[in-house]
Structure formats: C-alpha cells, structure tokens
C-alpha cells in the first residue's frame, strides 16, 4: 500500500473508480434518457440502452406546466432563505458552544441531538393544528422557519467542530497588527470557516429543497414548492413518465449547480488557508 498519493493512481484503483462512477451515474443516466425519449419508447419490451430518438417535448411540457415558475420561485426563495438564515443562526450557536463554558451547555447539546430524531412527517399534524388556530396557514415564512428548525441540530454540531478548530492566536495576531475585533474575525477567522459554512449551507439547502409533506399540507396553491409540482405528473390518465423524469432532472439541476459551484469556492478557500497555515 502506497502512502504517497501518486498523481494518477494505480490501474486497479482507476478501474475501481470507473466502476464506482458507473454504479452511481447509471440510474441518473437512465432518468435523463427517459426524459428525452418519446412517450412510446419509455415503457416497452424493446429495451434500449442508448435512445435512438430524442425529443424535448417532456422538458417543454414540464416547464410550461401550470405553476412551474411560481413553484420554482417559491422553492428558490424558501431554500435560499433557509440556507442563509440557518447557517447564520447555527454559527452563532456553534460559537457559543465551542468557545464558551456556560451552564446548560451540555443540556443544550443533548437537546439538539435528541430533537434530530423527530421525523418531520410526525410534525405535520401538530403544526397544522397550531397554525390553523393561529390562522397562519399558507404563510411562506412559517415554512422557512420550520425548515430552519429542522436543520439546526445538524448545522450546529458541524459548525461547532469547525469553530473549535479555529486558532485563536491568529485572531489575536491580527488584532496586535491593528485590526479591530470584528475585522480580525472577518478577515482571519471567517475564511477558515468557509468549508464548514459551505457544508452546512449545502445540507440546509438540500433539506429545504426536497421537503414535500409540510409544503403540501401547510401551504396552498400559490405558496407551494417544486416537490409538490413533481406530483402533478400523476394524473387520472396514468402517470406521465417522460414528464416526471424531465421534471426530476430539472429539479435536481439547481442542487447540482449549487454544490458544484461551491466546490470551486472550497478550493480557493484551501489556498487562502494554506497561506495562513
């Protein structure tokens, strides 16, 4: 076993890598090619690995379906809000937990973990009852708040680890050099936190983006989100499989874009960190 990371890896490792890639990518490939096949060729005895005819009609159907752009807007608004706000709140809490000793700290950590075990579906009934009585049904910010609460346990735990790893001396060194306390924080500490913030941000985004049951139950038509829209391909006339797959592909794209774009960020964060280190 070579401990040195060779630049191109061994043949065996590369073959294994290809197999692993194929395992993960094939179902996605199937999803996307189905989205591009004409309806008649989707469920057929004549299995084709490579589609012979391509059509964009399913994507056209999907994007022109009623409410698509509204749902997309709602999903983006909700998910981005959840991401930014929950990372912020979690960062505050993580700083407190990682850097200070205070009474109730252990209880707080424990409570956060326990709360993680509650399945979101279980909260549908009580949330509906509570919101109904408060006449707050169909209010989008409530959805944002719920998702934030749901991702908090995980984001706090993760950021706690990152905050705890930060070297205090670097901040102190910057302050000796004349930077204010906040200046030191922003310019020194914050970039080092980048990977943690991004990781938790991506997690929060995914949770909010994919959530379905609360959006369906607590919101009405104009406030609903994309996962609900995916259900529109099941009609009384059977399921529009092509449309469903096209919709799924469209649904997955923002997530992939979001994560891939952040990948680049992290790499540059590494360069910055290396200089500081």
């Amino acid at each position: 076993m070579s401990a040195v990371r060779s630049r191109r890896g061994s043949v065996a490792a590369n073959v294994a890598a290809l197999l692993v890639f194929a395992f993960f990518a094939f179902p996605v490939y199937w999803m996307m090619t189905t989205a591009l096949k004409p309806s008649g060729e989707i469920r057929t005895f004549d299995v084709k690995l490579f589609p012979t005819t391509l059509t964009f009609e399913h994507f056209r159907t999907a994007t022109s379906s009623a409410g698509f752009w509204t749902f997309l807007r709602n999903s983006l608004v909700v998910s981005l809000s959840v991401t930014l706000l929950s990372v912020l709140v979690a960062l505050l809490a993580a700083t407190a937990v990682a850097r200070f000793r205070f009474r109730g700290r252990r209880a707080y950590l424990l409570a956060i973990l326990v709360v993680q075990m509650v399945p979101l579906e279980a909260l549908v009934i009580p949330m509906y009852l509570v919101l109904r009585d408060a006449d707050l049904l169909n209010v989008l910010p409530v959805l944002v708040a719920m998702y934030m609460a749901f991702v908090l346990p995980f984001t706090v735990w993760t950021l706690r680890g990152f905050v705890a790893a930060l070297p205090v001396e670097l901040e102190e060194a910057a302050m000796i050099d004349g930077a204010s306390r906040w200046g030191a924080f922003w310019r020194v500490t914050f970039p080092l936190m980048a990977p943690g913030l991004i990781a938790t941000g991506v997690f929060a985004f995914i949770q909010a983006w994919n959530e379905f049951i609360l959006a369906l139950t607590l919101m009405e038509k104009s406030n609903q989100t994309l996962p609900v829209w995916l259900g529109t391909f099941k009609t009384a006339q059977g399921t529009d499989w092509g449309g469903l797959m096209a919709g799924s592909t469209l649904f997955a794209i923002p997530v992939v874009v979001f994560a891939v774009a952040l990948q680049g960020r992290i790499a540059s964060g590494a360069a910055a960190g290396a200089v500081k280190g």
Partner: protein
Amino acid sequence: MDLDADRSPVRPPRPAAVAVEVADTVPPAATAGGGPVPPAGLPAAAPRRGRGRRAGALPYGLVLPSILLLAGLLAYPLVVLARTSFQKLDLRQLIRRETVWVGLDNYATILSDREFWTVTVRTLVFAAVCVGLTIGAGTLVALLMRRLGTGMRLLVSAGMLLAWATPPVSAATVFRWLFDEQYGVVNWAVTALTPLDWSRHSWFDSALPAFTVIVLCVVWQAIPFVALTLYAGLTTIPDDVFEAARIDGAGAWRTFWSVTGPMLKPVFLILTSLSVIWDLKVFTQVYVITRGGPDRQTVLINLYTYVQGFGVSRFGLASAAAVIMVLLTLSVTVWYVRTMVRVGEEEL
C-alpha cells in the same frame, strides 16, 4: 522523527492544517435526510488553548435564536403531538373541531396489533443492513478516493453528487423500472450476458428480492454523503502517519483498524448515528417501489404508521404511532447520543 509519537493513534494534527485539508475536499453530500460532517471530531484532538472562557451573558445571547426556533417549531409541536396522541382525531373531529379524549386507547390499538411488532423488527433489521452497507461501502469509496489522482477523484465525486441530488421519489421510480419484470434493464442485461433467462424474472414477488431493490435504492443515495465526509476526514490525517504505519510493516487492514479508524472515530460516530436515524425512517422508497407489498411483506414502520393514520384519516392514532416511533429511535440511538455528547464535552 519521534517514532513513539507517530505510533500514537490520537496524534493531534495541526489545527491550521485541519482547515486547509478540509477546505481541499468536495463538499459532503446530503441524502434525503443526509448531511455532511467534515471532521467534527478531529478538532477535538486540538490542544487546549484557553478557549473555555466564561463570558457572562454572551453565549446565552448567541444560542437564543436557535433555542427559540427549536422550542417553538420542534419542541412545542412535539408537545402538541403527544397531546393529540391521547385524542380521537378522525376526519370528523378534525373538520368539526371537536376534542375527544380517549386516554391510552390509541397506544393500546397500535401496541396490540401483531403486525406492528413484525413491522418493528423488520424495520430494525432493514436499518441495520442499510447502515452496514452504507458505512462499509462509504468507507471503501473514501479510501479509494484517497488513492486516486485528481481527475478520477473528481469523476467519482461527480457521480456521487448526481446520485445524491436526485429527488428520492424519482430515484425510487427509476430503480423500480430498472428491476421491472417486463421492461427492466437489469433483467434484460442478465438475459443477454449470462446463460440465465430472466426475461420474466420478478423482483417483487417475494419479500427478499423486493427488499434487495429497496435497500439498493436507499444505499445508492446514502453512500455519497458518507463517502465524501469520510474522505474529508481522511485528508486531514497527514501522510506521515500512514508512512509510519507502512514502515512499521502494517498492512492495509491493520492500518485502518489501528490508525485510521480511531482517528476518525468521532466522524464515524455521527455518521452512523445519523444513518441509523434516517434508515429507521425510510418511507418514500418503500412506498414508490412496492407500496408495502407483496402482501404487506415490505411494510416498514413509517409506512405502517402512515397507512394506519393518514391513510384512513385517523390522526390521533397517527400521532400515537409517531410518538412510539420517536421513542423507538431514541432507544436505538441512545448509546450513540451519549458517546457523542461525551466526545463533544472533551473538547472544552
């Protein structure tokens, strides 16, 4: 080089190096419930630097927003959930806004149903299998990634990213098709490439093949998160540690168990406990792929409670079932929780 220090499995890496190497990795992926934890545990080994300062009201102010959110939107609904579990809340009561107390009737109904116990055991076994496969395969992939060049590593990450970004409903649908009796690619490929004739082989006629498909679908979307997180953790272990182990004559297996594993213990802890929690809750894949069939043999506990409650509009019963599920999850993960909190405590 101090050989004794190198042999120590708990050698603390330099904190700055932690930040650098973590930054070097792909963001961990999230599954239908997943989330990444870059080395939350590694900083635990960082030398104490006088961080545990007592600072009056500031920490309370910092945790306040999170406490408000959690209390208002998770804890309070939990209380309401518990209250509802003692009520009869069918469609009639819901629409007419009547409150009918039935004490422990809902719990009695569920706990006395023989199917409930079958389903619970089945779910525990299912979760164990899924978690085992996810963590096992995730570890192997992470180790593999460590041995690849940048290009191949990005390829593998990209593949995993695609799998994780797919909405669970769509993933389940695709897997249902891939294993379809009539139109499925898997049967077609097996028939074409092997002497077997699987042109009408049914995967959903009995529980075991059906579960194979379900487990495959769940694990397919769960591995990326585990693999990428572990890989992030692996990159924080400096190469000299491995070099030292190799010089000492340790093989790959031994190195993992004595060196890598213990260093990543906190990461493994949180990954495993999260995986257990999520795999106990699996619903979408079962619903889409088999809907609990054949003959209700693939019903897992979340689907069971859904059918018993929502399916027949008996929300009091559904609430009781949800409470039972939470308590069940709690009892299974209590060991992990305690260990994690203890690990977290050690940092201060």
